[in-house]
């Protein structure tokens, strides 16, 4: 079957059937009876009408405000109790964090008083978060209530770090305004939250993702090729693509596109992949014809990424590819095959590329060259140690010494290390715990989705966030060789924040359809 061909029967009726209640309602011009009146007792074997097909005056689960009957067409507000409570905690935590940070900085200037300093940055951020929450409440979302607070907390901690580091690390000139690190991070976080709100509220159907999976994959490849041809080289890696004053790293977006493609392809061919196999001697392999488009996709993405010398992204792509494949087929042979290929590939890369060799050598013994190649890692290890159990306190860590930063790339690759130094072991534990909350919610949404595409997409997006976090935290703590990659929501970086926001927005949208089913 030609994969480019759309399914013989267009899935448009799927959509109208699922949301059949809405058009039927508006056609009758008022709160009419359910369009599918089936007078049959619910239960096994007898048809039961979907719950959301009822008249709009029948909310289910959770409290709703009474709305006059003449306003039936308005979205019905719905309290989001857990989200409100958790966001209140996030607000308190961030304000406390900013007070400790600004007081510490005031103390360094010789003023011993507790102060919030300039409240603009935390207030704008918290205002945006609450605005998103209010929007969800007013539009009557039934989506997951834990994702937004968890992401808001991580983003807020990232903002704290950005406000704490020397503002000159990143600067950008927008006309008459010169924006520093914290201003830019705030700008990106606000845009990211807007993306989350827009996707969570506007996405009603996944057909635009499911049907155009090859187009999305193609777009990703074109984007990467564009970077390869026109990209700007920063730190020896050609990652950045600039359009006017705004620069971005398309490989961040590519990871989302890759997951969309994998989910679409695997959900279509899942039965075949899980049951058939090709036998080569004693080894039973997956059916090769069905795997080829995916392997090609993977090889293209990987080779481009290796050509661009972005090891972190390569590792992330490969791990996500294997994880989604395993989720779809539940077969260990794929994972075993993938692990063997990974070991072989790593060996080849180690032999061929000097920059890979440097990373591994630094990982094995950073103290061999503590002022050269191992400098970054050595400083990071000292930072972890200095943090201790309770941390030095925000603003009191070593990055404050002098005007510059003690760890190179502290605002992107070593964001977790910097926070671990100033918040200590307990703070680091809380950050990891918050990431786990995001992952748990994502996997729960995946496990409860009605169909395979959404399940795979939700699992893939969640695993992307999870694996990326694991890679960078492991790299920071010298558990695995360090690869340059951002900590989702925590690190500075527009592309990273937007890509992670897209993932969370889609997860929220899918959890909504799940709840409304």
């Amino acid at each position, binding site marked *: 079957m030609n994969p480019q061909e759309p399914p013989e*029967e267009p899935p448009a009726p799927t959509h109208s*059937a699922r949301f059949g209640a809405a058009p039927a309602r508006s056609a009758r011009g008022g709160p009419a009876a359910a369009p599918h009146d089936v007078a049959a007792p619910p239960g096994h074997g007898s048809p039961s*009408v979907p719950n959301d097909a009822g008249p709009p005056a029948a909310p289910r689960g959770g409290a709703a405000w009474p709305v006059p009957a003449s306003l039936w067409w308005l979205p019905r507000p719905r309290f989001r109790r857990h989200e409100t409570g958790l966001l209140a905690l996030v607000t308190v*935590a961030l304000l406390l964090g900013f007070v400790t940070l600004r*007081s510490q900085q005031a103390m360094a200037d010789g003023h011993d008083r507790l102060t919030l300093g300039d409240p603009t940055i935390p207030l704008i951020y918290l205002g945006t978060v609450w605005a998103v929450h209010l929007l969800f409440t007013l539009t009557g979302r039934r989506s997951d209530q834990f994702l937004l607070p968890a992401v808001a907390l991580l983003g807020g901690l990232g903002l704290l770090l950005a406000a704490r580091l020397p503002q000159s690390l990143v600067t950008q000139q927008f006309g008459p305004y010169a924006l520093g690190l914290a201003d830019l991070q705030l700008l990106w976080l606000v845009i990211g939250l807007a993306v989350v709100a827009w996707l969570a509220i506007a996405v009603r159907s996944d057909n635009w993702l499911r049907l155009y999976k090859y187009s999305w994959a193609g777009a990703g490849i074109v984007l990467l090729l564009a970077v390869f041809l026109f990209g700007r080289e920063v730190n020896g890696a050609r990652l950045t693509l600039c359009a006017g004053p705004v620069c971005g790293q398309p490989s961040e977006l590519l990871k989302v596109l890759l997951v969309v493609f994998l989910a679409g392809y695997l959900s279509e061919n899942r039965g075949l992949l899980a049951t058939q196999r090709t036998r080569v001697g004693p080894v039973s392999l997956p059916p090769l014809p069905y795997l080829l488009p995916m392997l090609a996709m993977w090889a293209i993405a990987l080779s481009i990424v290796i050509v661009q010398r972005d090891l972190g992204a390569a590792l992330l792509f490969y791990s996500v590819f294997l994880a989604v494949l395993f989720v779809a087929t539940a077969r260990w042979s794929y994972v075993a095959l993938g692990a063997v290929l990974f070991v072989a590939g790593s060996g080849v890369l180690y032999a061929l590329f000097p920059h890979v060799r440097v990373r591994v050598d630094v990982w094995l013994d950073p103290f061999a060259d503590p002022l050269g190649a191992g400098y970054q890692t050595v400083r990071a290890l000292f930072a972890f140690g200095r943090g201790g159990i309770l941390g030095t306190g925000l603003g009191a860590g070593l990055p404050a010494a002098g005007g510059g930063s003690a760890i190179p790339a502290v605002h992107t690759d070593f964001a977790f290390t910097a926070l671990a130094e100033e918040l200590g072991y307990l703070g680091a534990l*809380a950050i990891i715990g918050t990431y786990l*909350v995001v992952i748990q919610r994502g996997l729960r949404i995946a496990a409860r989705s*009605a169909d395979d595409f959404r*399940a795979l997409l939700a699992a893939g997006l969640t695993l992307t966030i999870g694996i990326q976090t694991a890679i960078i935290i492991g790299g920071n703590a010298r558990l695995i060789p360090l690869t340059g990659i951002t900590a989702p929501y925590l690190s500075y970086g527009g592309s990273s924040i937007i890509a992670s926001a897209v993932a969370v927005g889609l997860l929220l949208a899918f959890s909504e359809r799940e709840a409304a089913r």
Partner: protein
Amino acid sequence: MDGFFLALWILRIAFLGVLFLFLYGVARVLVRDLRRAERDQRTELGRLVVVATEGDSPPTGAVFALDVVTTIGRAASNTVVVDDQFASTEHAMLTFRGRAWYLEDLGSTNGTYVQGERIEAPVAIGFGDEFTVGRARLRLERGRT
């Protein structure tokens, strides 16, 4: 001076405390969720949704909870009765084997179609897949918890 240090130190501890309060708040609800899931076990293996149909019964949008073996056809003895002229008396059968659903044609006149192709032998179908019995388009979905 000392008072200020003490206050700052208390605020720092409070900051860490609120972070863990947040995690505690999430964990409490998670545990309650898990308990509830444990109490009412997943009763449905899957559900069948009528996506589109020409006949009267079942109507578009109807949902059937599925048992391990579900027969589909025009006769009243079927688990899911599709009242459609183009459906055979005993048309198709859905079976849950191990952890996957299989669709089998029971020798119907007009055939059972998955993704536009007529099936000859039992095929594994995933959640979200659609198939056609007569003129009725049906979709297999994951059961509710």
